[in-house]
């Protein structure tokens, strides 16, 4: 595994945060996660972190750097490479009085802990008649774009949003990461917190005070009157770039970052479509049975009569992520494809 390179990420900013919340500092997503983990661990001694390489190494991306030194080996636990035991012991710990934050080194490997996640964590409260709380967070990096090929590049948000019992959170700005991670940690219910590997170095303003962002509330990143563009995770930044370009050409894109995949804020999307009458959905995970299909189906059910053009989904292509740089670039949605989709729904 090599260090991630994020050549294009520094151009992104944090969207609304730089205008709304003074006094603020500019931090990276990585710093935002790290600071929030530390602040919450200082506040609540029942919070622990466990996972591979989270301790002395500070996680391969540096996300947990310094936490081991501050909180010690009793609260920042380096585990063996045992995903089922990491996920399952986080459940047992959460059910008996801790608030664990488990980390899976690459979200692809959640598959190894899938029984614990899908059959146990998601269901244990319901099948035991509501008598057990499971306040746990599973953090995992998702996404492609570093030549890490088929087993280190996936995003599974649609799988998990399909399972009743799991909350799926996918922010990509420092401001959103701070507010949503704090909500996740304080939630009494299990949360999957997906961080894009290409998003760790994204910079943005984040206020110096404690704040939370509620789940199920989308962010209208940019207002526009012609096309609603729902963009998940770092696709938000690509959609914004396209929106700026097309704005200059007289096409108004309203860019919405759902922030949480479940719960999903359809009200905000439908309200936007009542204004724009057109929809484009952008996500990096592959198209087939992806979250884009669910978003379109919900919009069709709720606002079919508002649409003046068939919705478009811009998504990853339906192949395992290839290693080669050129092939990889074909799979991941880019500004060109987003722009084409917007023009298509505009009838151009």
């Amino acid at each position, binding site marked *: 595994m090599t260090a991630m390179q994020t050549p294009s990420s520094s151009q992104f900013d944090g969207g609304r945060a730089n205008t709304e919340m003074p006094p603020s500092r500019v931090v990276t997503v990585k710093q935002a996660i790290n600071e929030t983990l530390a602040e919450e661990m200082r506040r609540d001694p*029942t919070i*622990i972190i*466990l996972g591979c390489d989270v301790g002395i190494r500070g996680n391969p991306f540096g996300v947990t750097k310094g936490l081991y030194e501050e909180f010690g080996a*009793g*609260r920042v*636990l380096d*585990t*063996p490479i*045992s995903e*089922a*035991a990491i*996920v*399952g*012991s*986080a*459940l*047992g*710990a*959460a*059910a*008996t*009085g*801790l608030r*664990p934050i488990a980390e899976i080194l690459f979200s692809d490997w959640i598959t190894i802990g899938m*029984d*614990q996640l899908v*059959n*146990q964590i998601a269901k*244990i*409260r*319901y*099948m*035991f*008649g*509501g*008598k*057990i709380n*499971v306040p746990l967070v599973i953090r995992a990096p998702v996404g492609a774009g570093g030549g890490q090929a088929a087993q280190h590049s996936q995003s599974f948000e649609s799988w998990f949003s399909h399972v*009743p*019992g799991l*909350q799926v959170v996918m922010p990509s700005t420092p401001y959103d990461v701070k507010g949503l991670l704090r909500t996740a940690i304080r*939630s*009494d*219910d*299990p949360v999957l917190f997906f961080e894009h590997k290409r998003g760790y170095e994204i910079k943005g303003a984040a206020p110096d005070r404690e704040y939370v962002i509620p*789940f*199920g509330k989308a962010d209208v990143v940019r207002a526009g009157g012609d096309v609603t563009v729902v963009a998940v995770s770092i696709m938000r930044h690509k959609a914004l770039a396209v929106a700026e370009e097309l704005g200059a050409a007289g096409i108004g894109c309203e860019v919405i970052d759902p922030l949480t995949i*479940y*719960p999903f804020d*359809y009200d905000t999307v439908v309200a936007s479509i009542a204004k724009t009458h057109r929809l484009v959905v952008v996500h990096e995970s592959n198209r087939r049975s992806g979250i884009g299909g669910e978003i379109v189906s919900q919009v069709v059910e709720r606002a079919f009569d508002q649409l003046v053009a068939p919705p478009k989904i811009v998504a990853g292509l339906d192949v395992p992520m290839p290693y080669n740089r050129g092939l990889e670039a074909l799979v991941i949605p880019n500004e060109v494809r987003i722009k084409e989709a917007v023009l298509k729904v505009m009838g151009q």
Partner: protein
Amino acid sequence: MARRITQSENCEAVEVFQRDILQPLSAPADMSADEQREIYRRMRLIREFDSAVKGLWKQNFIYGLAHSYVCAEAIAVGACAALEPTDYITSTHRGHGHTIAKGGDLRKMMAELMGKAAGYCGGKGGSMHIAAVDMGMLGATGIVGSAMPIAVGAGLTAKTLGRPFVTVCFHGDGATNQGVWHESINLAAVWDLPVIFLCENNQWAISLPYDQAAKNPSVSDRAIGYGIPGVTVDGFNPFAVYGAVRTAVGRARAGNGPTLIEARFYRYIGHFVADDERYRDPTCSALWEQFDPLVRMSKYLVEADLVTPAWIDSADEAARAAVADAIEFAKSEPEPAPETLYDGLYSPEFMREQRIP
């Protein structure tokens, strides 16, 4: 190491058990007569409860699947006798016995099996997900081996918060060949967590005998690989189980980490209520019934002059009456209302969009 058993082909395993595993019943010196009698009462409650389940299932009072704890009574009761009320247990798909042994309420249990609102899980779990969280029983699970890391997590809570509780992780021999079994014991061992892994080796994973599932017939031998103590005891013998668990609990509470205990016995009943047992020779199963833990325990109590035969009869009658009462209660209780469908979900505030059809 015990000799290789071949229970699928012949009845030789009975002789192996008799020679290598069987331990005579003998209570520890510090266990009172009352405590010994209570062990019998609990075992008999489990026997009567699970004996009633099959008939109730056939009559359609119990829906879905149900797995009986009959012939394993000595394990749950022996183990839980070594625990404090504040200790935790995790369970298997065969969870009725664990629930009763940990002090579960028969009425709430039977109501759950009948899917009633008054059941432990409000009718959401049934037999396979029976749970009595308030008693420290962290719930039954329908997936073999899945409770292993949950027990490890409970141990992690005890260690992190400095609480004195231990967790007994009941699991079957089938679980020992799941990957998560290894991951969990290894993690508990390397972190010295207060967990007791108690393998109920009934020698059958549904239709697969253990000698076709693992080359080494001894589960406890595997403890060596994790650097923790491992012991095999007579699983038809509550005192043998109690003694091993008590030692393991002492070790765990002292901060010295987990123990792997194998309670070896034999499932001479079907895997579940509708098992036709076509995969094995019924003459072998019949031979194993000589070790029936209830028969052995009652004989022991009488021979040790701790009870009279009449006491046994009245204890048995009391158990039957308690189960009959639980059945009557469960039958008379209402079904859960449709409005309870979404109760117990995480984050119910996000479910407002969904309506009961």
